[in-house]
């Protein structure tokens, strides 16, 4: 434990969230408190606002503004820690819950205390059995210690669907209805779980909140960029030597992240940044890119939910995108016509292009992508459109080659 005490006040260096992490088991409550001490009483809303923290669940919305919006409501709020993480290429929230569950619980409790909420609900995905077990144990340990008698921590399991993690879908599910997105307004901060104002935050975001409450906004801003401060967890997969979850200072170059992950296993062709709602970026363009909101904006990308997928030169980006588009179409909540029919049509057109059937589906695809965007109750269609549009751009040569009947990739 003395080794842990050495980094008790983490300086302007990494790791932050993953400090004190052990691979064999979760950090216990004793170890956690020995390293970081109890949660201090601070003006959390002001501290988080000053920190510039942005949500790490995909939207990138300023966390302080969300806290402020809930704090301004008159009735008693509820806090929800969203760790559903249904994206197949993301594993960061699961890693946090499996290894440092108390950091996430601290963030949820700190937010609840600051807002006067009596209940904080941690929602994990249906297939995250290990994370579920660790969180259950961590909640039990805190209850036995009577660490925060004013806040009741509860654990819930989301149904196994991608859209269940969307915040209005979570609110609906936690209120006893279907885990499907609802029409907005109202947003959760206006009317959420059980009708009360609800703060829904991604698990990683809350882990940052736990550290900001202890070390303050200036400490948080000591790394990262001015516009996108702090550190972030990225899940690196694909043609990479050591796939896994890495903590970087925002603004770190992609090449440096790849080096930290052991380097690529094949010449990269493109990178999928941000996950299934993300953007393909050509490898030549991507390598020097800095991983921050402002550096990625000009190339139309963002870190989204923190996924980086390395596509090797030997693979077909079009085939890969067709597969993802089919999955996304399948994961539609099935509520909104443009999403149900539009995503199915897009997936079908990509299948035809990927299969080299000779029909040029590009005009239809362009029209559908234009039409679908913004016409769902949630952003499922928008995220899907973004991914496919970037694929048609980045893999344009591949598309033309397919129209001539051949595919660069090792088609299975």
């Amino acid at each position, binding site marked *: 434990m003395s080794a842990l005490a050495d980094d008790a006040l983490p300086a302007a260096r990494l790791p932050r969230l993953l400090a004190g992490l052990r691979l064999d088991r979760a950090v216990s409550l004793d170890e956690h408190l020995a390293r970081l001490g109890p949660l201090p009483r601070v003006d959390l809303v002001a501290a988080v606002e000053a920190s510039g923290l942005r949500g790490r669940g995909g*939207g990138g*919305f300023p966390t302080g*503004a*969300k806290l402020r*919006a809930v704090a301004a409501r008159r009735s008693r709020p509820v806090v929800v820690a969203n760790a559903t993480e249904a994206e197949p290429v993301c594993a960061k929230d699961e890693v946090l819950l499996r290894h440092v569950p108390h950091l996430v619980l601290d963030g949820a409790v700190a937010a609840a205390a600051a807002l006067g909420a009596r209940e904080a609900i941690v929602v994990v995905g249906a297939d995250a059995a290990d994370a579920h077990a660790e969180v259950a144990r961590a909640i039990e340990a805190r209850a036995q210690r009577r660490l925060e008698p004013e806040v009741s921590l509860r654990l819930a399991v989301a149904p196994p669907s991608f859209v269940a993690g969307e915040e209005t879908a979570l609110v609906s599910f936690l209120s006893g209805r279907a885990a499907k*997105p*609802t*029409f907005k307004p109202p*947003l*959760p*901060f206006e009317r959420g779980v059980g009708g009360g104002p609800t703060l829904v935050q991604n698990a990683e975001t809350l882990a940052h909140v736990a550290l900001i409450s202890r070390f303050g906004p200036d400490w948080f801003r000591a790394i990262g960029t001015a516009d996108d401060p702090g550190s972030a967890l990225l899940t690196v997969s694909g043609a990479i030597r050591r796939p896994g979850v890495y903590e970087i200072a925002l603004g770190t170059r992609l090449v440096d992240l790849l080096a930290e992950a052991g380097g690529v296993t094949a010449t990269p062709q493109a990178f999928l940044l941000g996950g299934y709602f993300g953007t393909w970026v050509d490898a030549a363009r991507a390598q020097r890119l800095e991983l921050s909101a402002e550096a990625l904006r000009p190339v139309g990308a963002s870190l989204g939910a923190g996924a980086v997928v390395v596509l090797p030169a030997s693979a077909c980006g079009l085939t890969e995108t067709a597969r993802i588009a089919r999955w996304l179409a399948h994961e539609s909540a099935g*509520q*909104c*016509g*443009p*999403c149900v*029919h*539009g995503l199915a049509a897009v997936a079908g057109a990509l299948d035809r292009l990927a299969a080299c059937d000779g029909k040029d589906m590009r005009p239809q695809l362009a029209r559908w992508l234009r*039409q679908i965007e913004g*016409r*769902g*109750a949630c952003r499922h269609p928008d995220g899907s459109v973004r991914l496919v549009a970037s694929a048609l751009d980045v893999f344009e040569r591949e598309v033309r080659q397919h129209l001539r009947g051949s595919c660069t990739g090792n088609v299975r």
Partner: protein
Amino acid sequence: MKTLRVNPIACDGHGLCAELLPERITLDEWGYPIVDPEPIPGSLELHAKRAVAACPTLALVLARAARGAVAR
């Protein structure tokens, strides 16, 4: 100023709105309305109200221009 909005969950694509307000509403190839987000001028307000009233699923709403979103 008021704008037209569709609740896409409630909408079943009956298409009456596009017939009553073709100036602002077209249908996509699956029959679901694509609504012009621009504010409805006074000259069209009556037609817009008629389209709203005609929707069998009450999916079309005429509301004051959207507030700035506080959270996504």
